[in-house]
């Protein structure tokens, strides 16, 4: 085994070749070196896991696997950074769940970024999975840069899939739902019944909330004159919700397509959905949880002053950002170096982010490979004092990058044609807000 190991390591450079010829051995080795190992029982494969992957596939093209002590997180973000989804499965969900021995909080549990196109087909046909798969075994092998997903099927058939991953920093959006003025909770059925009236191609919808009612209507882009579109509106009375808290009348517009995934997930599990929303421009959070999992989708909302344009590739929008920057806007680096991605941390770390390394955004965005595990105050100062830091980064990493809401409403927001939102960056205690 020892010599095999060295041969194996030595031949890493040859890439694909050794995988084909040694695939059997490789998976055995990979198992030994596996950084994370978990086993999922049949019903859980089809149900929550399969559906979670389906829901995330509606959000982004890449899937982040983040094995942590407190569970396995599956995450995705869309290319415009206007939608983020996270499904966290607690260790209780798995029949067996283990991280690399010696792995403790803060140690290097590997974070993998997979291409969604490689993973989704494995779970595409949930009914056939239900029929034939008895067990699913997932492991991450750092030695081979592969995530190994094995389906143990009936009749002794084992299907092994080795999926290449890129090592990556954690994709982490931290959103403090406690800061939201409005909170709704409704059975999944209710929300599903609301969205069913809108066509599948409907991109954005507007949710309006007042103490009297909650209204959903399709969002029409202005200036679409000659094209006659059907306008649909529906309203719900507050007492249809399990929980209805309103602090602020607001109208938020967000992308419906990305929401459908989690709604379908919630419906399949018959779980209630909690909605956290605030003023236009701030992200809206949809979350679902039960004893073994927690799912969250964060969607950017259109800012008040911007009711015209919609999500476009953020790169193209950067030149339009004016107020917040003193230097020419640089296009957002979508990926710095080999798949590292960095995000800032807003003021408060909520429980779910424990264990994931947190990176400061602007610094990293400007300087490739810079990864700072810094404490909050330093981060914030980085952000606010860096007037030269491209506001584009602030715009684009909208969920992950923090700008104070004060700033947004003053001026930045007015300039931003992107479907953007900001979460509060600083606690008033940590840092005084400074206009950039």
């Amino acid at each position, binding site marked *: 085994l020892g010599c095999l190991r060295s041969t194996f390591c030595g031949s890493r450079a040859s890439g694909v070749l050794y995988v084909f010829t040694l695939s059997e051995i490789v998976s055995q080795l990979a198992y030994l070196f596996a950084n994370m190992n978990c086993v999922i029982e049949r019903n859980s494969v089809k149900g929550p896991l399969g559906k979670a992957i389906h829901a995330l596939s509606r959000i982004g093209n890449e899937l982040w696997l983040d094995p942590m002590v407190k569970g396995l997180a599956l995450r995705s973000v869309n290319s415009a950074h206007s939608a983020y989804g996270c499904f966290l499965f607690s260790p209780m969900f798995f029949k067996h769940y283990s991280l690399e021995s010696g792995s403790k909080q803060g140690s290097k549990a590997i974070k993998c970024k997979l291409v969604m196109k490689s993973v989704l087909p494995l779970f595409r046909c949930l009914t056939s999975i239900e029929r034939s798969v008895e067990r699913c075994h997932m492991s991450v092998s750092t030695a081979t840069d592969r995530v190994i997903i094995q389906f143990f099927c009936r009749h002794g058939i084992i299907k092994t899939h080795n999926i290449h991953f890129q090592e990556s920093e954690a994709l982490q959006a931290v959103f403090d739902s406690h800061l939201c003025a409005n909170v709704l909770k409704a059975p999944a059925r209710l929300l599903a019944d609301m969205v069913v009236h809108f066509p599948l191609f409907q991109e954005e919808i507007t949710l309006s909330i007042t103490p009297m009612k909650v209204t959903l209507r399709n969002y029409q882009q202005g200036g679409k004159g000659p094209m006659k579109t*059907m306008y649909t509106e529906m309203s719900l009375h507050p007492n249809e919700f399990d929980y209805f808290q309103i602090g602020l009348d607001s109208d938020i517009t967000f992308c419906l397509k990305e929401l459908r995934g989690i709604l379908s997930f919630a419906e399949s599990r018959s779980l209630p959905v909690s909605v956290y929303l605030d003023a236009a421009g701030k992200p809206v959070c949809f979350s679902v949880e039960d004893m073994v999992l927690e799912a969250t989708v964060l969607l950017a909302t259109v800012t008040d002053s911007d009711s015209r344009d919609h999500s476009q590739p953020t790169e193209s929008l950067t030149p339009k950002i004016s107020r917040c920057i003193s230097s020419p806007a640089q296009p957002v680096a979508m990926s710095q170096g080999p798949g590292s991605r960095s995000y800032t941390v807003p003021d408060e770390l909520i429980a779910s982010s424990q264990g994931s390394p947190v990176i400061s955004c602007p610094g990293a965005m400007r300087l490739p490979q810079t990864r700072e595990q810094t404490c909050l105050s330093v981060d914030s100062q980085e952000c606010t004092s860096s007037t030269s830091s491209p506001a584009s980064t602030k715009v684009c990493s909208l969920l992950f990058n923090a700008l104070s809401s004060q700033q947004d409403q003053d001026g930045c927001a007015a300039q931003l044609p992107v479907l953007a939102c900001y979460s509060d960056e600083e606690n008033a205690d940590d840092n005084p807000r400074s206009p950039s």
Partner: protein
Amino acid sequence: MKFRGKITDIACLNHFTTFSRILKSAVCLNEADPLCSGVVTTISKLTKTCVLRLTPDHLFFILPGKVTNGGVGMWCQLLQANFFQEYQMEGVTSEVQEICLEVSPEPWSRALKTVQSAKSVKLKLTRKHCACLTVAAELPTLSSVGRVVTHDVPVDVIPRRLWQEFQEVGVPDFDVSVYLPPLKTMKSVVDRMKNLSNFLVMEANLNGDMNLKIQTDLVSVTTHFKDLGNPAGGDVSSQDGGPSQSRDPEVMAEVTVDIRKLQQFLMGQQVNPSKALCNIVHQNVVHLVLLHEDVSLQYFIPAVA
């Protein structure tokens, strides 16, 4: 020009739902529509416009048999009194008590889909960003307050000079008229035949026999239906009331049609009609007539050139 109608009776709503399902299949558009999978991509391109015609007594839903619709025409007629608890309209002028609207099938069928689960529906002609037919459906909820869904379906008012296209089509001078076999049976036959050929021959005679035939280089398949019965006055001569030149009851009148159009027609028929018959004009057109309780539906499938 004004129109408002309201349906509050559950039984009427159910009938309306039946009607809307028939329409949906006839227009057969939305790719996500479970009724239409498979036939969609071909047929959906054929159906671009639908016409809604309102008179004091009737509601007509018409697919004009133009080239854009592949020559297929559909005519659906409802007696408004059987559906609406309230029905008020004012035509384009005080003499002409009629309104003709052109509506795009897809949004219209989506609005109708909402109606299917409603407990009451209001329809009215409004002007929002453009002329619209507003469908306001009240949906049942567990709480005391209903849920209202409003769809504003954009419509175009059709000018009077174009109205003659949408006037009532008389029954054509047909050669044979025969009752149809159970539509489900026909559908399963046609579905399988569609896999083999694009064209199907429908023929029937005055003896109550009907055949559906396809022919390819390799295979020919014929399905025979017997003892279907012919409606009284089942041929042209007796219609005229003149001296009957009796048609030989054994002689078949036939039409070669595009099989997909026949399939489209059959797909929508989920409820068994109280009467279903077929008039055939030899080598010309197939005229299918379905009578449900309150709805009469006529479908014209032209012969393939």
